[in-house]
């Protein structure tokens, strides 16, 4: 131990306070810290004088000492008993040590006013410096770790030898020199009381405007302030209105409270999809449906009456309505003064008001394009945001700590909600605990091989089943196509029968979508996984594979077969037919889901309880349900081009589905037995929505617009080579009418049609991403260095405290010996 302490001299210099009242037994730090704060500014040092009275020196040990965490440099000393104890724990601290400890800056954060003022003085200094220029290294205080010097890490100088008044003055000085925004931010962030902050602000403002007092602000800026206040008030009231309008708030809380975050994430995802569809519906309604509804075109002669089957098949009466592509006209809609319709684009009617003209084909093209573009942006933004939330660049991963400290919602005031929240917290904590504490099992090579074989077998079954599905859909669709060709050639066919036969393909696909995940579950039953998360991911992957392949085959069938030669099946308007097919698929999917939920889950619960004798209800299969939602949404996105009112159908479907699923879950399911952490599930769901689903849909739509010739006798793109030419034509017309705008045409020709520009853009994008990843790497290194620094400082602290204690012990020992010598003589 250190032998260079001079025990006969006081340890620290002038102006000291002696811990003279050793009589007082201090049990907790609370009292001491309060004393320190109220007593005003003190120096950090205390004199350890030679004390006469040592009888009441020993203090009850604080409950939480410095337990050995195995990270210190200390050798563990052994006691007389032979037990090995950490020196910090074994000896109770003396009053003196505790006094010093209680005045440590880390214990007085937020309590001593002087410290707060100094701390904020330093912060404002930093801010001022940062806004001026990058300071040189000489300005930094010397740190014992030269490796992080220059990173802008200043040590907070907490207590200097100044009075509070001086510190306050210096702080006000600094505040004045900051910009208004920075100043307000500093003031708001200070942990002082409102009265003190008002005082500081008053002093700052006073110095700012020595001539005018703070209430006489010039009238134009006063008006500006009032406007800003009014805007802020309205913004906050709008936010609170939105918050109160939260859809399904109470139901979601109930579900979350009973079943945990996993099941809740499914319902939240449903809500997100609903908002996407609402947006899509609003756009198409405003720009396509409404204008067309105000100018209905001439209807063909045969218009069938409404039958019940039409709701499911989407054909019949609905064929020539706003619902499908075929209804939309290709001319420029004009408000005619004579009350008659203008039917041709080339003729110039007598009274023409250019301001009210509406080019339908252009509108159609741009609306679909823009809505896809905006949906893409929203998806990518939400994906990156949720990814950013779950991504950490440093290694420390404090999910449990964050959950413990930020999971109590202070807003909740209803007693039943509070109980719900406790239950919720309990479930979530157990989930996280299960994830964090994972036991690694040791398996021998034989078992590992066996495991591998079982996995291989399960995967073989799944892939085989998927391939079988795909082939069957392909051949069935071909069969249906040929059947349609045959019936087209026949003269008299029952239209109802024809419509019913069209339902066969959707029914088959929905049936396969229903049964095959069950098969996947069976295959997964025999497999063993390390953690439930892996199991979920594998199940997700298999289901995804199935859905993607089925959709690919269907797209080929529609775009490759039907659209290529529509005359084969006597189709006047193939886009309407494809739109109807998509409608049928959506409706069939919905019907099968309803049946499955109402009967399937109910029957399964009864079966597992009565026949299998299991005491518990079955668990809710999250992966499968989410993929069903994504599948339906993909269909909706593909179908928007062919049927502008399809988002409305999807909205109704989602609304109904929500209530059905909630009631089913409450009745038939229970919380998952093996709780697992699903905080990253939202990210995965949004990613799945963006990448396979939305990307696939937009590829389909782009392909249709780019290369498939539209029908010649219906729809807004008749007489055009491809749908894309609507945009081109408009630009050419624009150029023709105003030669000044030829620049626009040239820009259009080079940017949109030339692929070179896309390559350059993509190249720049990739370079920017590379730079950002390098920055992240650098930050990771800095974080690692800082953590090392902090650990070493902790070790320093422990060392100093034990030294203090040991010095005190030694002095006590000496004085006791002296006293015993005195009394002995």
């Amino acid at each position, binding site marked *: 131990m250190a032998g260079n302490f001079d025990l006969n001299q006081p340890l620290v210099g002038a102006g000291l306070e002696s811990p003279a009242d050793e009589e007082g037994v201090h049990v907790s730090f609370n009292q001491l810290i309060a004393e320190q704060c109220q007593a005003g500014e003190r120096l950090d040092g205390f004199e350890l004088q030679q004390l006469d009275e040592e009888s009441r020196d020993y203090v009850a040990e*604080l409950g939480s000492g410095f337990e050995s965490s195995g990270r210190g440099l200390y050798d563990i000393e052994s006691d007389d008993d032979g037990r090995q104890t950490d020196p910090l724990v074994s000896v109770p601290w003396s009053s003196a040590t505790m006094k010093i400890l209680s005045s440590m800056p*880390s214990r007085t954060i937020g309590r001593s006013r002087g410290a707060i003022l100094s701390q904020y003085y330093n912060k404002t200094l930093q801010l001022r410096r940062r806004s001026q220029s990058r300071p040189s290294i000489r300005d930094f205080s010397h740190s014992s770790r030269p490796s992080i010097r220059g990173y802008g890490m200043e040590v907070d100088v907490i207590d200097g030898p100044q009075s509070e008044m001086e510190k306050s003055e210096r702080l006000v000085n600094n505040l004045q020199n900051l910009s208004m925004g920075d100043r307000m931010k500093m003031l*708001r962030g200070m942990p002082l009381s409102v009265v003190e902050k*008002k005082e500081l602000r008053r002093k700052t403002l006073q110095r700012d405007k020595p001539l005018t007092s703070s209430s006489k602000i010039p009238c134009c800026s006063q008006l500006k302030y009032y406007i800003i206040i009014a805007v802020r008030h309205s913004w906050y009231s709008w936010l609170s209105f939105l918050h109160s309008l939260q859809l399904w708030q109470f139901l979601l809380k109930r579900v979350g409270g009973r079943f945990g975050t996993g099941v809740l994430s499914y319902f939240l995802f449903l809500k997100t999809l609903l908002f996407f569809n609402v947006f899509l519906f609003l756009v198409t309604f405003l720009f396509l449906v409404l204008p067309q509804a105000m100018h209905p075109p001439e209807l063909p002669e045969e218009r069938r009456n409404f039958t019940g089957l039409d709701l499911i098949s989407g054909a019949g009466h609905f064929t020539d309505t706003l619902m499908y592509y075929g209804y939309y006209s290709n001319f420029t809609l004009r408000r005619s003064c004579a009350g008659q319709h203008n039917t041709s684009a080339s003729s110039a009617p007598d009274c023409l008001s250019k301001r009210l003209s509406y080019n339908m084909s252009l509108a159609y093209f741009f609306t679909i394009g823009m809505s896809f573009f905006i949906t893409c942006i929203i998806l990518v933004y939400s994906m990156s945001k949720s990814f950013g939330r779950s991504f950490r660049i440093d290694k420390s991963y404090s999910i449990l700590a964050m959950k413990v*400290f*930020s999971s109590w919602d202070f807003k909740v005031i209803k007693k039943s909600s509070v109980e719900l929240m*406790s239950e919720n917290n309990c479930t979530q*904590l157990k989930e996280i605990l299960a994830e964090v504490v994972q036991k690694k099992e040791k398996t021998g090579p034989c078992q590992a091989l066996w495991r591998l074989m079982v996995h291989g077998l399960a995967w073989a079954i799944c892939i085989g089943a998927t391939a079988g599905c795909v082939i069957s859909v392909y051949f069935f669709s071909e069969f249906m196509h040929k059947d349609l060709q045959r019936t087209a050639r026949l003269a008299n066919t029952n239209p109802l029968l024809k419509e019913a036969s069209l339902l066969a393909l959707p029914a088959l696909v929905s049936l396969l979508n229903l049964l095959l995940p069950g098969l996947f579950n069976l295959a997964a039953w025999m497999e063993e996984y390390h953690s439930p998360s892996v199991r979920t991911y594998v199940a997700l992957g298999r289901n995804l594979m199935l859905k993607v392949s089925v959709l690919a085959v269907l797209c080929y069938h529609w775009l490759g077969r039907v659209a290529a030669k529509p005359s084969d099946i006597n189709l006047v308007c193939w886009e309407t037919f494809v739109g109807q097919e998509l409608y049928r698929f959506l409706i069939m999917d919905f019907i099968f889901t309803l049946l499955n939920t109402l009967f399937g889950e109910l029957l399964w619960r009864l079966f597992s309880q009565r026949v299998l004798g299991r005491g518990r209800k079955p668990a809710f299969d999250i992966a499968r349900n989410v993929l069903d939602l994504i599948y339906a949404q993909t269909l909706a996105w593909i179908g928007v081009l062919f049927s502008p009112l399809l988002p409305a159908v999807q909205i109704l479907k989602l609304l109904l589905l929500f209530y059905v699923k909630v009631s089913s879950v409450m009745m038939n399911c229970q919380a998952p037995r093996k709780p697992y952490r699903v905080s990253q599930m939202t990210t995965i769901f949004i990613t799945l929505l963006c990448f396979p689903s939305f990307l696939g849909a937009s590829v389909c739509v782009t392909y249709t617009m780019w290369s498939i010739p539209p029908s010649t006798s219906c729809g807004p793109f008749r007489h055009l080579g491809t749908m894309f030419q609507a945009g081109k034509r408009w630009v050419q017309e624009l150029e023709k009418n105003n030669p000044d705008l030829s620049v626009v045409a040239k820009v259009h020709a080079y940017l949109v049609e030339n692929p070179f520009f896309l390559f350059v853009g993509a190249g720049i994008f990739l370079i920017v991403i590379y730079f950002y990843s390098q920055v992240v790497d650098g930050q990771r290194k800095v974080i690692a260095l800082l953590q090392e620094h*902090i650990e070493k400082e902790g070790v320093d602290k422990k060392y100093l405290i034990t030294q203090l204690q040991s010095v005190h012990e030694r002095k006590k020992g000496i004085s006791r010996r002296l006293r015993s010598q005195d009394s002995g003589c």
Partner: protein
Amino acid sequence: MGNKQTIFTDEQLDAYQVRLHGRYHELAPHLVPMDYTTEPDCKIPLALIVNMPELKENPFRNRIVESFSEDGMGNLSFNEFVDMFSVLSETAPRELKAIYAFKIYDFNVDNFLCKEDLEKTLNRLTKEELTPEEVDLVCEKTIEEADLDGDSKLSFADFENMITRAPDFLSTFHIRI
């Protein structure tokens, strides 16, 4: 909501304070005078404040009120009352909320979150539905995750470092009044 309006005029701040004063007064009408021009020095005891509907069901209500009271016993003067609701409002900055959250969770008031503090926090969070082993495990893991300097308790720096990365801290540490 109080501090965001301090940038403008004193009248604006007073409107918010007047509203809060109404609430303060109805907690103890016989104690609190309506006329504050003489700046009376009255404090409402803890027992009356935690009966507010916003705080009544909150398991941390005692700690919240104690953290804002100067005497540490939970008796709030009107200024401290305003402080409390302005820190817990939606627009208070994150650093300020972190400071007071730390104070609230520090049950033995030693400026560190030690294991006992965490145990008490957990018991209040889950209404004692976790088994003692689970509570123990959670406390240990929490300290392991967040403690940076190796003293087996969380100092304010550790806590702040961890809580600034919690995405929902700002929205949960909020009382609407």
